[in-house]
């Protein structure tokens, strides 16, 4: 009854009602990982003994009549950039392999475990989260479960692949410029990049601190809400964590979109993409009867400023290793980190000042609308080893960087954004990005759940 397709919320209900044991659920997830990971290469570490022990403890607590939490016995895995006590946080690098195992769990990992979820392992990523493909040369490429010849997206590629393939119903990743949303789109799952500061980054290996976010992946809207509700909230361990009151999103999953002011993004978000990605937005907009189009001004410049901030902050963080052992970096990140170390300070400050300007313009627009739709990515998952550049919309673009063309301007100003999957038999999935004003996550869940109920978005199991 609890197969790879089972929703996290249904697993938890079954465990709490003792219709199934958490131990059996964990054992089944571990068996799926053992069966599929060689092909997908999405796990960096699997913890079978600990997971089975922890699941058995959940069962004992259920037996004793304790409340074991809303995610009782739900298997989950986390991008190996979030600390897991006893596991070395590699962040996709060779350099961090020399570091000792983490002494404690990242705040978000601990929160899911407190909610009763059972951690089965850690997941692959681009080195130091600087990429959109998870073609990691140190540990091998992770493969998209919809087509093993294609990338899963990145940098949280392992998380998206593991959820899409049904190895786990929930995973955690991080998103600096699109690293949750792009892989969610390429792998056909739901992924949420929360409002900046809404989910603690404590215990996460930073990349570009002023842009880093932590968030969940799932195959259903209810599961995504349950995971987000477990991890959202203030945290004194994270200097940018918000003290804003927590608004649980699970209750919003059952609500309709009636009364919400919806719009489609024009301009930058209606260009720069393959026709199929733009058609997907039109299809969803038509179903939602959206007639309004709005333009976020200077979004191409917002993306450029995000690139500057990312490169400079990333280079600053890794400067000692760039100086002492540049050869130990992934060649794909090394060149960009080195370049980031050479940018003048005035450009960085200007990018941060432009960020304040763009935030103000975007805030004005979100006074008039509640949820904005854009494509998540400009195309479906590219092939592993795809050529460096390709033509799109009459321009030559860098394939890896351009995958974030629609996600970067929005994370740049910390807006909550969710990628919801459009699936159809025989074609690669595409993602629609739903965007709201800061702390507008409940509205994203309302729209996503409406689309899921109408059958427009879904995350069927991939491969296997």
């Amino acid at each position: 009854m609890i197969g790879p397709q089972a929703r996290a919320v249904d697993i938890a209900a079954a465990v709490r009602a003792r219709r199934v044991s958490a131990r059996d659920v964990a054992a089944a997830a571990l068996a799926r990982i053992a069966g599929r990971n060689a092909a997908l290469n999405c796990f960096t570490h699997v913890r079978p003994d600990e997971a089975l022990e922890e699941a058995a403890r959940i069962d004992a607590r259920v037996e004793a009549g304790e409340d074991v939490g809303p995610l009782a016995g739900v298997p989950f895995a986390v991008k190996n950039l979030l600390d897991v006590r006893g596991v070395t946080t590699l962040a996709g690098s060779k350099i961090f392999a020399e570091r000792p195992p983490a002494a404690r769990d990242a705040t978000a990992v601990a929160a899911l475990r407190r909610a009763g979820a059972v951690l089965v392992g850690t997941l692959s990523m681009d080195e130091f989260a600087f990429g959109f493909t998870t073609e990691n040369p140190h540990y091998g490429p992770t493969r998209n479960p919809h087509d093993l010849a294609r990338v899963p997206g990145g940098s949280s590629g392992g998380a998206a692949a593991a959820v899409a393939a049904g190895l786990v119903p929930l995973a955690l990743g991080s998103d600096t410029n699109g690293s949750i949303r792009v892989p969610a789109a390429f792998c056909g799952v739901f992924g949420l990049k929360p409002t900046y500061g809404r989910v603690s980054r404590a215990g996460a290996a930073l990349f570009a601190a002023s842009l880093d976010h932590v968030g969940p992946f799932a195959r259903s809207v209810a599961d995504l809400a349950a995971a987000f509700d477990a991890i959202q909230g203030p945290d004194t361990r994270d200097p940018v964590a918000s003290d804003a009151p927590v608004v649980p999103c699970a209750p919003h999953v059952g609500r309709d979109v009636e009364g919400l002011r919806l719009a489609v993004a024009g301009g930058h978000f209606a260009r720069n993409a393959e026709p199929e990605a733009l058609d997907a937005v039109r299809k969803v907009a038509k179903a939602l009867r959206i007639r309004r189009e709005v333009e976020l001004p200077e979004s191409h410049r917002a993306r450029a400023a995000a690139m500057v901030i990312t490169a400079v902050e990333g280079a600053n963080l890794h400067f000692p290793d760039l100086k002492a052992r540049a050869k130990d970096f992934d060649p794909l990140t090394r060149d960009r980190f080195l370049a980031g170390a050479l940018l003048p300070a005035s450009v960085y400050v200007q990018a941060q000042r432009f960020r304040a300007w763009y935030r103000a313009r975007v805030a004005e627009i979100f006074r008039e609308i509640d949820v904005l739709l854009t494509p998540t990515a400009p195309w479906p998952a590219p092939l592993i080893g795809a050529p460096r550049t390709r033509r799109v919309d009459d321009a030559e673009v860098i394939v890896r960087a351009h995958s974030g063309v629609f996600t970067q301007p929005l994370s740049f100003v910390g807006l909550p954004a969710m990628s919801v999957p459009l699936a159809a038999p025989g074609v690669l999935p595409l993602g629609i990005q739903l965007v709201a004003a800061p702390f507008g996550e409940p509205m994203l869940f309302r729209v996503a759940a409406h689309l899921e109920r109408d059958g427009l978005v879904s995350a069927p199991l991939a491969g296997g």
Partner: protein
Amino acid sequence: MGESGVKQLAALVGLSIDPLDLPNVVVALRVLLGAADLVREFALADDVEAAPVFRP
């Protein structure tokens, strides 16, 4: 910006770049400088402050 310029710039900030990596760093820096131009050419009023929040 060519290879010699990148090499000099790297020396200024205390980095030494392997000659084999130089061509790719030049390409990466050109991409970033293109982004930097987009940021720099946009005029901002003097009272627009940097976005990150410092909480004493």
